[in-house]
């Protein structure tokens, strides 16, 4: 089994981790680890960061060869800071991630991704033969990265096909199966995830009627069981926008630039549209994107699952609400920690919402 590299944010390019010979291990904020994050950080940080830190403090993690942090928001920055205290022996790297999308940002991010690649290759070489650091052979490394990106893109294409089916019809169990595929890519391997995805492109069961088509969005929703619950509660998830669902599998358009890192930067900054990244030419465009995605996926309503204390999302909710209202698309926002544990409390509201939407 490959050695693992831990990471927490969807702006971490998995193909780089795999090209360097590691397995990706996205640390999800789910664990029975006791709540100790408050010793290092304030309690008003998002549950994502606190729970991941709880895992680190309780050693509820597999062996990690290193950690990749992204300076994506204040809470993530603080997580990187606290990690040094929680696990001082870990090798870590923090990448700066620009907030606006323009040429300068893309150039800078491409250098950051290159720095990540170099660091990962170095980490692997060092741990193979600590005494002799083998000569870096850039062409071989670039070829490896291109290979991994090619597989990643196949996975992205398969995921897209599954999503297209989901938006047209309700196939019981497909949303949960898709989540399992994405989690496999995040915590195990792209190859395995791709094999799983290819089997799911053609649904085994026929489509069914009788559920309310809903588009869901927010920060993280990663437990496949949550999607089964939604079905029980009369929800047909037509599409979703979380950094743990399909937006995590960002396809990388290698035709945009000869420099592979610039292609990665282009693809991730433009296509992983978490609320923390902004298109300065269109302030508030996140609201339009959610309206558009809801419409494209034939949803009748929208549910937002937002983590408590998440500034990037919470500050955009009023504009999202307004944009949906303008289009007469019903919307509810549920605030919580987005794990199975907190989901039970949302049942009544979700059922009432779908009842109001009808089928």
């Amino acid at each position, binding site marked *: 089994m490959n050695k693992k590299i831990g990471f927490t944010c969807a702006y971490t390019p998995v193909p780089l981790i795999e090209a360097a010979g590691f397995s990706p291990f996205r640390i999800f904020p789910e664990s029975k680890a006791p709540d100790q994050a*408050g*010793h*290092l*950080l*304030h309690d*008003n*940080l*998002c549950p994502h960061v606190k729970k991941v830190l709880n895992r680190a403090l309780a050693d509820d993690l597999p062996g990690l060869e290193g950690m990749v942090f992204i*300076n994506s*928001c*204040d*809470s993530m*920055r*603080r997580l*990187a*800071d*606290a990690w*040094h*205290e929680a696990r001082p022996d870990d090798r870590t790297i*923090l990448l*700066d991630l*620009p*907030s*606006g999308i*323009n040429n*300068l*940002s893309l*150039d*800078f991010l491409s*250098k950051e991704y290159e720095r990540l690649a170099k660091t990962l290759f170095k980490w692997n070489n060092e741990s193979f033969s600590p005494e002799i650091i083998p000569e870096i052979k850039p062409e071989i490394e670039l070829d490896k990265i291109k290979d991994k990106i090619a597989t990643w893109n196949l996975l992205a294409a398969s995921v897209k096909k599954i999503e297209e089916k989901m938006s047209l019809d309700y196939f019981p169990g497909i949303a949960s199966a898709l989540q399992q595929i994405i989690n496999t890519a995040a915590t195990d391997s792209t190859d395995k995830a791709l094999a799983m995805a290819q089997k799911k492109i053609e649904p085994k069961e026929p489509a069914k009627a009788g559920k309310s088509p809903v588009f869901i969005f927010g920060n993280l929703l990663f437990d496949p069981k949550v999607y089964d619950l939604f079905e029980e509660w009369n929800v047909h998830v037509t599409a979703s926008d979380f950094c743990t669902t399909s937006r995590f599998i960002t396809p990388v358009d290698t035709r945009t630039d000869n420099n592979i890192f610039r292609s990665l930067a282009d693809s991730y900054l433009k296509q992983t549209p978490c*609320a*923390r990244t*902004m298109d*300065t030419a269109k*302030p*508030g465009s996140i609201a339009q994107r959610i309206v558009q995605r809801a419409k494209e996926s034939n949803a009748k309503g929208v549910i937002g699952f937002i983590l*408590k*204390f998440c*500034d*990037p999302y*919470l*500050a*955009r*909710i*009023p*504009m999202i*609400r307004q944009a949906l209202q303008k289009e007469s698309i019903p919307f509810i926002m549920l605030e919580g920690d987005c794990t199975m544990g907190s989901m039970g409390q949302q049942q009544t509201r979700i059922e009432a919402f779908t009842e109001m939407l009808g089928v």
Partner: protein
Amino acid sequence: MMYEHFDNAVKGITEKLNQDPEGINARKKYALELSKLGKKLYSKDENIAWCGVTAPFDLLGSMGVTSCFVEFVGAILSSTQTAGLFLEEAEDSGFATDSCAYHRAVMGAVLKNAMPEPDFIIGTSSPCTAGLAIVENFANQYKKDFFILNVPQNYTKDAVKFLAAQIEEMTSFVSDHTKRPLSKEKLGIALDYFNRSSQLLKDIYDLAKTKPSPVDNKFLKDFGTVMALLMGTQQGVDICRAFKDELNHRIKTGRHHASKEKIRLMWIQNRIQYPFPINEMLDDLGARLVVDELNDVTWEPMDPDKPFESIAKRMISIPYSMDTSERIRHMQDLALAYRIDGAINPCHWGCRQGTGPRGLISKGLKDINVPVLNLEIDCVDSRNLAKGQIETRVEAFIEMLS
């Protein structure tokens, strides 16, 4: 309403200063200049830019733009005890009560049309993601053009180059809106004022280190952050000089409050903005706030031949942009230089950036034997203030230090 507030303040302070033309009156002169800035922002006949906290106000000023960080308005609303109305407006419109009240108050003011419309908006990723999110809301609400300065956290050559290039690009963005090109000469003058102000700031902070310290608990309140709005101007230099003169005068005449100094304290991040008698309370207990975390000169002098690079380095160097370990190192240096006995961290509710690393900061200062009092307080929103509880904790802390 805000225009009247600043206008009255300008008139009132000018009158007082005229009554005492020979006096040094540093804080009055400072308040006067800030009120004049406020009046300009609300006067409708200036080129206005609403910005993030770390924007290069000296550069913007040299381009004829009146600019200010939006949190300044949040602080003014709080200090005039009018924030409640605006906080409610923002909350009714869906802005979370768990968010930073500086931003919530100013967003409420935007929604109530109590803010002057800017010509354009310049966001900065330092200090916080929340600040950037709020200025995006501004841009969306006013339908105004929006520019972001991404301030990297890693202090590397590439990071400085990246930020410097953005600052240069920002000048084209500004010129496009004002139809005035950047004048190297005017920028050179602004940077010269900035450098002279920086040197005076260093002198001021050195004087504050004296034991007993000539500062009183209010004297340098939020000075480092707010002075950035004025430092590229002659007025900024004059104010700094007045502060320096006043400290020297206090030391020379021994007429400062230092006689009561038993305990020396550091204040972490921002002060409480609404009227709350913590300064008086500390005074009564013989404790003096001799240093604020953000009152420091962390940058080299600006080089007029490399203006963008100099400004970029300055922006990355300030505590707002630092990672926590560096921020702690900076606090430790201040703690030793000012010979403090303890520190107060107000833990402003909703601030992930400054308050976020609460435990790490306590530990970092404990490592050099400086105890920290973590107060859980909202520095802007006084609606849920547990006054008695805070007083008890402050008293107990000072007693423990004594």
